[in-house]
């Protein structure tokens, strides 16, 4: 019998809207978690895939010594896709022209991730393929065609072999960022290496093995590989530190994760509020049922069934809406990015259902247990059991559930603790501030009967309830501000690294006489460009008179920039400058004294550490068989993440004139400049161009994706915040009705009541917004320093934005929630209160 009664009660409560809030809260939590985790997971997978494109694989093993075939065989045995690469320089010969080219020999299967972009003619559109040149064929970068005077399909000699230049190589996924040596690119079939006879003992050759497959298999494989790896072999992945893209990827992952946590926090607040309110509203029916002979077991069964049904339906609805939302969002993102987003798999389903069920259970458990304890005597003593509503156990249970959920969702204790700590401080500050303010308001001496004094009186009267409301509002506003500021900061930070007007091509190997003509070519064609930097190649071969032993010290799993890693004894691109270049910062020593008569050198921090160089050391360089010494006067931090040319060693201008140099510059070509570019390269066949347009586009598209994802999260958090607000205001509606009735009975005019309500919400919102701004800015500062390892800063605009948007947000939603109550006549309100 209880089952039928439970169903009747459930359907009625549902229809009366009594369950709507708790229903919406659970559904909201589920849809938030589902849509967030789906979208972030899909974007994460996409970013990971895209990032994997940058190395043409998921992982790679690199060395300047041949790699053991057994590595490949074992990887294949474990089910991984594999490919091999070999890099070497070789002379290309055609039409009596001789040009040094950078050969990349690739085996079948390359690229494991990403695509190779080709052209079938100089003026033809490019297209993408996944493959390698056939045996006997090579794909050459456009510059080589010009330098060698080749037409498509012509023969070209590479070393001892003759090959057909069958395609123009526009781009390959793992094209080097700024390798000044790797400009004239040749893609060669791996099996043709022997034909060239270019690789001889002592040749400078780099080897790579590429791997792709399931993350778990890759991890297993690395477990097998690690003990066998030598010092000169490096295991690299896109996430590895110091890879500019790896850093960005990690940052975006953390950011999306952080954003996801906020959704959960808000949903949890809405849930706790609505569960408590629902249970409180059941006190009278339960007392009545007990009075009429209902047993504890019957009542427990009825309400547990309600909880199960609410959970089931709301989880289902949440999943359905969440699915649609994420589909719409990812569709939009996919269209915007012009890409396919991979499916997210079962993880979001599992996560959101678990969170829905756990939330429903944990936030309702204590109020429900309290409900079962309501004494039947409440039918006579109406306030009996009310004290149960203020339950420390419920608070503790809710708070610890939120903590565990956040931890579960983020998988990061530090992030969770930081966010949680920030919120705890917020709550403490708010509780103190609200109590203080609400009691201080009494001393303001406002005239009785004014809307303001009524608003303040109302705030004071419900000091406790208001403190709770204030905390909720502030939490919602804090999260919104937090997300908003973090988004602005991070995006602008990233965009500064890859600005819209960043140069999209580098021109290298410019001889001194060509500088003027190229410069005037730029002016004529209205192309913006950077300075022309002198470049010469040389080695650092001794420190304080002692020759370097050629060691390559590498930390496991780390990819350092190649120059820094193998600076000792290796040929480097050297330059001289008078001014410290952009994106560099002197962290030790001082920048060159323009009047110095001595030869000085400034070194990147990474290289200095790798080679154990300190300020004041003497470095011996060998350039064109000519040896000279320079004093180390400064160490620089270099922003390797920026898409700008960076030098590990910079001399003062005293070095100028000692050696022959070539120049390089950066320029920004626009869409439709292809013909101009071709003209430039035809006019200067020895000049090489590194086109980084696609690199920039890739990086910018990643920023755009993250930015859009955050906007989506912000929208969800905003909705969650509104729901928290609505649930809070709804929880106070009965009390408000009573007040309105009393005030009206006492002759208060509608306008007074309306204004008082509006002011009350404005005050609450402004106060909540102010404290939210305070705590969010401080937490943000800590998070930026601790999590993102960037120099955090305070944001004065938040201090204005917080109180103003808080007041507006709370006032608009709060006022409209209460408006319908205020419109009802006193008799109608009285009946509702009965």
């Amino acid at each position, binding site marked *: *019998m*209880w089952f*039928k*009664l439970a169903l*009747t*009660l459930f359907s*009625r*409560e549902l229809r*009366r809207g*009594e369950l709507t809030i708790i229903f919406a809260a659970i559904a909201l939590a589920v849809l938030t978690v589902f849509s967030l985790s789906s979208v972030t997971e899909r974007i994460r997978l996409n970013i990971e895939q895209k990032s994997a494109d940058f190395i043409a694989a998921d992982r790679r093993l690199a060395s300047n010594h041949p790699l053991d075939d057994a590595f490949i065989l074992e990887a294949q045995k474990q089910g991984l896709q594999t490919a091999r690469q070999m890099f070497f320089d070789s002379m290309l010969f055609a039409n009596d022209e001789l040009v040094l080219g950078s050969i990349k020999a690739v085996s079948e299967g390359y690229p494991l991730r990403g695509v190779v972009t080709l052209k079938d003619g100089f003026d033809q559109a490019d297209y993408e393929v996944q493959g390698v040149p056939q045996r006997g064929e090579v794909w050459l970068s456009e510059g080589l065609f010009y330098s060698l005077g080749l037409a498509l399909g012509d023969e070209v000699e590479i070393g001892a072999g003759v090959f057909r230049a069958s395609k123009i190589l526009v781009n390959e996924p793992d094209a080097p960022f700024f390798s000044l040596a790797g400009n004239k690119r040749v893609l060669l079939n791996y099996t043709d290496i022997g034909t060239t006879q270019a690789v001889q003992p002592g040749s400078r050759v780099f080897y790579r093995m590429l791997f792709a497959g399931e993350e778990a298999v890759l991890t297993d494989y690395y477990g097998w590989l690690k003990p066998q790896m030598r010092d000169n072999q490096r295991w690299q992945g896109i996430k590895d530190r110091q890879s500019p893209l790896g850093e960005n990827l990690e940052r975006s992952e953390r950011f999306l994760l952080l954003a996801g946590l906020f959704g959960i926090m808000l949903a949890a607040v809405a849930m706790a509020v609505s569960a408590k309110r629902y249970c409180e509203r059941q006190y*009278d*029916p339960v*007392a*009545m*049922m*007990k*009075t*009429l*002979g*209902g*047993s*504890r077991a*019957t009542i427990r069964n009825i309400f547990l069934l309600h909880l199960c049904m609410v959970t089931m339906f709301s989880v289902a609805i949440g999943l359905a809406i969440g699915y649609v939302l994420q589909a719409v969002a990812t569709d939009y993102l996919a269209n915007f990015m012009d890409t396919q987003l991979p499916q997210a798999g079962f993880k979001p389903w599992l996560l959101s259902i678990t969170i829905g069920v756990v939330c429903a259970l944990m936030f309702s458990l204590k109020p429900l247990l309290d409900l079962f304890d309501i*004494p*039947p*005597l409440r*039918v*006579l*003593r*109406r306030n009996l059991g009310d004290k149960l509503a203020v339950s420390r156990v419920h608070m503790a249970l809710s708070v610890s559930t939120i903590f565990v959920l956040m931890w579960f969702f983020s998988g990061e204790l530090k992030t969770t603790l930081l966010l949680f700590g920030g919120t705890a401080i917020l709550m403490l500050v708010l509780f103190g501030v609200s109590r203080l303010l609400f009691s201080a308001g009494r001393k303001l001496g406002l005239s009785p009967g004014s809307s303001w004094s009524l608003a303040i009186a109302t705030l004071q009267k419900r000091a406790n309830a208001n403190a709770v409301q204030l905390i909720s509002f502030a939490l919602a506003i804090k999260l919104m501000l937090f997300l908003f500021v973090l988004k602005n900061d991070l995006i602008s930070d990233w965009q500064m690294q890859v600005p819209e007007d960043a140069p999209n091509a580098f021109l290298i190997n410019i001889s001194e006489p060509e500088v003027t003509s190229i410069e005037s070519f730029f002016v004529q064609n209205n192309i913006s460009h950077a300075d022309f930097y002198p470049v010469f190649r040389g080695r650092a071969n001794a420190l304080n008179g002692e020759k370097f032993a050629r060691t390559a010290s590498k930390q496991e799993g780390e990819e350092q920039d190649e120059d820094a890693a193998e600076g000792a004894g290796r040929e480097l691109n050297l330059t001289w400058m008078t001014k410290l270049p952009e994106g560099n910062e002197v962290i030790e020593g001082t920048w060159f004294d323009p009047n110095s008569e001595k030869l000085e050198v400034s070194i990147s921090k990474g290289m200095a550490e790798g080679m154990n160089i300190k300020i004041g050391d003497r470095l011996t360089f060998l350039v064109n068989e000519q040896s000279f010494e320079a004093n180390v006067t400064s160490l620089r931090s270099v922003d390797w993440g920026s898409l700008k040319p960076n030098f590990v060693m910079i001399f003062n201008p005293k070095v100028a004139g000692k050696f022959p140099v070539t120049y390089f510059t950066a320029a920004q070509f626009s869409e439709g400049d292809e013909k101009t570019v071709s003209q430039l390269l035809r006019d200067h066949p020895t000049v090489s161009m590194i086109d980084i347009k696609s690199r920039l586009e890739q990086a910018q598209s990643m920023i755009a994706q993250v930015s859009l994802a955050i906007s989506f999260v912000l929208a969800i958090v905003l909705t969650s915040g509104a729901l928290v607000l609505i649930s809070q205001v709804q929880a106070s509606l009965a009390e408000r009705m009573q007040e309105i009735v009393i005030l009206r009975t006492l002759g208060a005019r509608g306008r007074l009541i309306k204004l008082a309500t509006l002011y009350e919400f404005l005050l609450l919102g402004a106060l909540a917004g102010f404290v939210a701004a305070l705590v969010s800015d401080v937490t943000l500062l800590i998070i930026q320093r601790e999590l993102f390892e960037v120099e955090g800063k305070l944001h004065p605009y938040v201090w204005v934005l917080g109180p103003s948007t808080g007041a507006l947000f709370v006032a608009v939603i709060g006022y409209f929630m209460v408006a319908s109550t205020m419109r009802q006549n006193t008799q109608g309100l009285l*009946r*509702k209160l*009965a």
Partner: protein
Amino acid sequence: MSVLSQLNVIQVKGLNKTVSTFEGDLDILSDINFTVKSGESVAIVGTSGSGKSTLLSLLAGLDTGSAGEVFLDGAALHKLDEEERARLRAEKVGFVFQSFMLVQSLTALENVMLPAELAGDKGAKQQASELLEKVGLSHRVSHYPSQLSGGEQQRVAIARAFIGSPKILFADEPSANLDSKNGHLIEKLLFDLNKQNGTTLILVTHDEALAQQCDRIIHIEAGQLEKIREGEGATVHVV
């Protein structure tokens, strides 16, 4: 059990109720003794705070006394736990409250059926419809409490009180929240149904006129039973 105690549907012996306050223990009721016979109507009167509602709650088993004994239809309430007392109420007791205490999410008919449904009675609907007809609300069966006037809500509460034919009916200020016209209507309905069903009625009220309609009137003052006198309704029973 003696014949006398069977006739005495309620027996109260040395009943005390003490509550703890910040200023020490406070006696709400002390040394209350009386009996109520089956079918009798008894009014409990007294000033506000005299302890009459507390007495009602103890008689109905909604609360337990600090000392003393209460027997409800032979069952020693003071020895039963809450669950057992609830079961007893389900079988033998009906209630009418000042604030109606209808479940807002149930219709008039469902509210009347509620005690029977809680007791697992399957024929509740028929009985509930008949009772609603008796209280003149057959046209309001599917209305929710918020759609009914105060008088109508109390009539639904009275119908609910009589479902399952309880042996004892407790009414706490049943007409206090109503205007005089509706109040009188409710009072009449209560007494009529009480007579028809032979129910024992325990009525807590301020209203002397209403109390007078009962067989006996128990005066409570400051937690003490001041006096018991006959009301105008006394016809058969003698103390």
